[in-house]
């Protein structure tokens, strides 16, 4: 049984809409941390938004979140993974759209902006899951440039941006950039094993 981290909710209550939050997690707790971020945004602050997934298929994420009682109806998913899998785009969910590849970074940005214009929500968020997944496909310099653009674009539009990464697996240059440009940090990156 997954237990959501309530302290993340407390931290989120103190950030503004133009914040960009770096969420660090470990390899074994990434989903729990992600769900702990989404839960207050959706259930407490009643926000809608866009979830860009480069780490796993959107179907899996939706099922995981729904099983924890986190409704996903107000979240638009941009799935950068499933197009690369034969049959991966067969889905019943109508809030998933697909991007051909994790290298099409600009597409992800534009499609996020498109979804936001369509849904016209006053308070929105965008979640980028994750930097590590994108690093598999994209050069470090390009990824750093992209994240810089990403953070600034949504900050300007007063959209809360949440960037998930596993610091042990993030290229140092990218990690340094994230530290520099993000306004807030939620750090669950180290797991203590007793």
């Amino acid at each position, binding site marked *: 049984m997954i237990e959501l981290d309530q302290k993340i909710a407390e931290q989120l209550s103190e950030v503004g809409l133009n914040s960009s939050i770096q969420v660090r997690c470990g390899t074994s707790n990434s989903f729990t941390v992600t769900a702990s971020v989404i839960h207050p945004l959706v259930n407490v602050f009643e926000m809608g938004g866009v979830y860009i997934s480069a780490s796993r298929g959107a179907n899996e994420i939706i099922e995981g979140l729904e099983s924890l009682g986190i409704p996903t109806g107000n979240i638009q998913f941009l799935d950068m993974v499933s197009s690369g899998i034969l049959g991966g785009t067969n889905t019943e969910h109508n809030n998933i759209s697909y991007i*051909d*590849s994790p*290298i099409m970074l*600009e597409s992800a940005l534009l499609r996020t*902006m*498109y979804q936001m214009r*369509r849904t016209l929500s006053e308070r929105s968020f965008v979640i980028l899951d994750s930097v590590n997944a994108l690093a598999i496909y994209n*050069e470090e310099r*390009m990824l750093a440039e992209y994240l810089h*653009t990403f953070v600034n674009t949504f900050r300007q539009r007063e959209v809360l941006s949440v960037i998930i990464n596993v610091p042990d697996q993030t290229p140092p240059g990218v990690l340094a950039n994230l530290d520099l440009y993000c306004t807030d940090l939620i750090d669950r990156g180290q797991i203590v094993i007793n």
Partner: protein
Amino acid sequence: MNHMESAAGYVRDRCVTGIHGLDEILRGGIPYGSTVLAAGSCGCGKTTLGLEFLVRGAENGEACAHFTATEPSVKLLDNVRQYDFFDMQMVDKGLINVFDMDVLYSWLGLTKATFDLGDIHALIKAITDIVNTIGVTRLVIDSVTTLCYKIQSEQLIRDFLFTLGKKLSTLGCTTLLISEITSEKSGVNMWSSFGVEEAISDGIIVLGDVERMGHLLRFLQVVKMRGTSHSRAKYAVELTSIGVMLTPMLKWGSSS
């Protein structure tokens, strides 16, 4: 504030395109009365760009005209219905007037395979008549390449484009000429099929594809625009149901 405006103290009137990102690139919009070449290879979004240009004008109550030479208007209107930004009412109410070039040729008795000087003047007169009578302020010809295939010589093409551009400008009409180019072209006259279009035009907007690790990404780039400064960067393009969307292309991410 762009350099040209501040130097002269004069702000040239703009045709605000309404296309996401494009007016910023052009520092406010296309200078009024300009003839702009929208050049690109197939599938790059030229027709969509042209249609959105007209729709945004129609939303402001401007009279707009689309001359289609490449595909029949029936097919064009069928295809464009998928876009949320397009409303058929604009066509029904005469805000967007769609003309088939084939029908226009037939009405003018232009039935030969190639046009001579007299035919060209008849065509220019017809187009300018339409613009003048309806009060068209935004015009798209899609594509000028298909039209120019019927003109015999480079000189005649030059005359045609120059005369048409001049007359439309006098009538206060901002024109987008869709031009089809092959992606392999490079060097001199990269954006003209007939070697002349880019020299005559006031502006050139290029649409194309860049390859990134085997995938094709659409881009847009403003190469030239008389009467204004503009960004010359490459922008990634997404053709969405609400229109064209642009964002700067990542510098490190393309092989061309």
